[in-house]
């Protein structure tokens, strides 16, 4: 078993357990909320205060579960010879969510003409190239920017286009490697306003 396969498997197993842990915590927090709601001795104002706290807890359980689910999927598919591009992209966005929110940069995935797109290479190298571009967008774009991620395929080549809005947001692509890995190309367009991660597809 190769290094990536082992790492992927361990990640998937750990995330599998993490989902269980989160489910137990969520149910117990929910039960506590139920019991407080049923307790007549607790004043209404205090119940409302508790309600607010429980809502935050439930929201955070949701965030944790999404992240664990995304990593579990990534880990369990690490050994696959082909990568499903849209789910892989969503996994990376889940991992980057907190940082992107802090920088006020958001992403919109548009599968459009690339629905069901599969890369003819394993997930890891493609993930590395996509993640580098995503991270560069978060670090290099102004607060309030939106990056549209367009999936497309033509003549056996797949691509993810990173289009930053508002338009003309150039410069964020500086430093991205043009050929991050064999078979994967990172093309910079429109004077640095757009980046395309290209790869062979099925």
């Amino acid at each position, binding site marked *: 078993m190769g290094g990536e396969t082992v790492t992927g498997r361990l990640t998937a197993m750990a995330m599998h357990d993490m*989902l*269980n842990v989160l*489910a137990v915590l*969520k*149910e*117990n927090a929910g039960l506590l909320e139920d019991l407080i709601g049923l307790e007549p001795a607790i004043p209404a104002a205090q119940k409302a205060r508790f309600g607010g706290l429980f809502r935050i807890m439930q929201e955070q359980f949701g965030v944790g579960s999404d992240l664990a689910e995304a990593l579990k999927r990534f880990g*369990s598919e690490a050994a696959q010879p082909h990568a499903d591009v849209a789910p892989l992209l969503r996994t990376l966005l889940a991992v980057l969510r907190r940082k992107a929110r802090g920088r006020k940069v958001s992403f919109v995935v548009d599968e459009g003409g690339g629905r069901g797109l599969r890369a003819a290479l394993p997930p890891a190298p493609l993930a590395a190239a996509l993640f580098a571009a995503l991270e560069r967008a978060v670090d290099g774009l102004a607060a309030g920017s939106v990056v549209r991620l367009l999936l497309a395929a033509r003549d056996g080549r797949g691509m993810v286009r990173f289009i930053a809005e508002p338009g003309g947001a150039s410069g964020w692509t500086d430093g991205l490697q043009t050929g991050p890995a064999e078979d994967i190309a990172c093309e910079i367009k429109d004077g640095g306003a757009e980046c395309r991660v290209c790869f062979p597809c099925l």
Partner: protein
Amino acid sequence: MKKIKLLLVDDEENFVRTLAERLQIRELGSQVALSGEEALDFLAKDTPDVIVLDLRMPGIDGMEVLRRVKRSKKPIQVIILTGHGTDKDKEEAMRIGAFEYHKKPVDIDSLVFSIKNAYRKKMEDMMVAATFAQAGDFESAEQILIDDGMKDKAGE
């Protein structure tokens, strides 16, 4: 509404006991089985209306329990509630005849809604089956009771 006979099957005891208590607060009493084997023992003695079933369990897993429930031809609706399911698992469970598929952690009100819908479906199926049986068409009556997706392939 009549009391729904509910069986919860999950090997994570901390989870399933808490879930049972939360459902009880919402007037849904339940029995708990902590493994696939325990679930099958329960089914040998009793017939719940609805089962909420985890998939990944040591020993007999949830998918196998679902298969055996459908093979038994008992009018039982099965809701899958799993933390580890893949898209393929979901497809397979629905093909075999699961009523619905939820991922953990699930919103309790969504789960209650699903359980009540599953029970309603069971009752509707039984009424339609009774109509066929009254008309002497026992084969159609039986088919309706086991027809939740997999039909003739149940148990294969």
